[in-house]
């Protein structure tokens, strides 16, 4: 597998969330994703970056442009060392929220992605990986 681009950004402020959207957009465009697919992955990135900031107390995102023989696209991995999620199934339910929002961030990001993985341990943190393929 050949990676053309791989960078990690920190998420500490709401301006960082905007920057994550912009870099995700550039990568999605460079990877040749359609306009709708670009919009989906950037929107998912925005939701997850906000979760990292608001629920995880800040963290990082790794943005990888993936180019293999079989697929081409974008993979984003959000990581924080926050309180973790005690019940992932509950957190993935539409409308479930602990932050006063709409409760669509995590479940929506999953629907907008082709691949979705979440690992979380209470007291240690959360890692969410999403990918969108061309």
């Amino acid at each position, binding site marked *: 597998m050949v990676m053309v681009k791989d960078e990690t950004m920190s998420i500490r402020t*709401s301006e960082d969330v905007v920057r994550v959207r*912009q870099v995700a*957009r550039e990568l999605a465009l460079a990877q040749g994703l359609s306009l709708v697919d670009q*919009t989906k992955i950037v929107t998912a990135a925005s939701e997850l970056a906000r979760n990292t900031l608001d629920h995880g107390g800040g963290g990082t995102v790794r943005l990888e442009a993936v180019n293999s023989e079989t697929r081409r696209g974008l993979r984003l991995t959000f990581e924080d060392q926050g309180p973790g999620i005690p019940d992932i199934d509950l957190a993935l339910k539409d409308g479930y929220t602990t932050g006063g*929002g*709409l409760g*669509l961030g995590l479940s929506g990001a999953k*629907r*907008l992605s082709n691949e979705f993985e979440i690992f979380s341990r209470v007291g240690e943190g959360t890692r969410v990986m999403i990918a969108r393929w061309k």
Partner: protein
Amino acid sequence: MERIPILKMGDYLLVTIQVDMHDRLAMTLQDDLTEGIARTRARGVLIDISSLEIVDSFIGRMLGNIAAMSRVLDAETVVVGMRPAVAITLVELGLSLPGVRTALNVEQGMSLLQLARAEQENINGYGER
């Protein structure tokens, strides 16, 4: 402090969102608009989002809040210019913007606001004068 400008035209307030808003900026706009409706006694608010490349759940919630708050203050809100890719994504995200009136462009949005106002005046009995 960074702010989104709000223009007053007759009885209406117009907002064109041209920057990629961070969350605090969106909250400031929500507060400024609500305060602006009360202060200017505006009858309608038109929000042009044609420059927005995405609408996520936070911005969606803000649009819903503005519509709800303006309704309580006796003003209509219409959101115009949503890009098709944004509309597709928004629905898949799980947001259908309940309670938010939409129109394709500024012109149709203004017509909608004027129509809503005329209907309101008919109900209030000013129509025959």
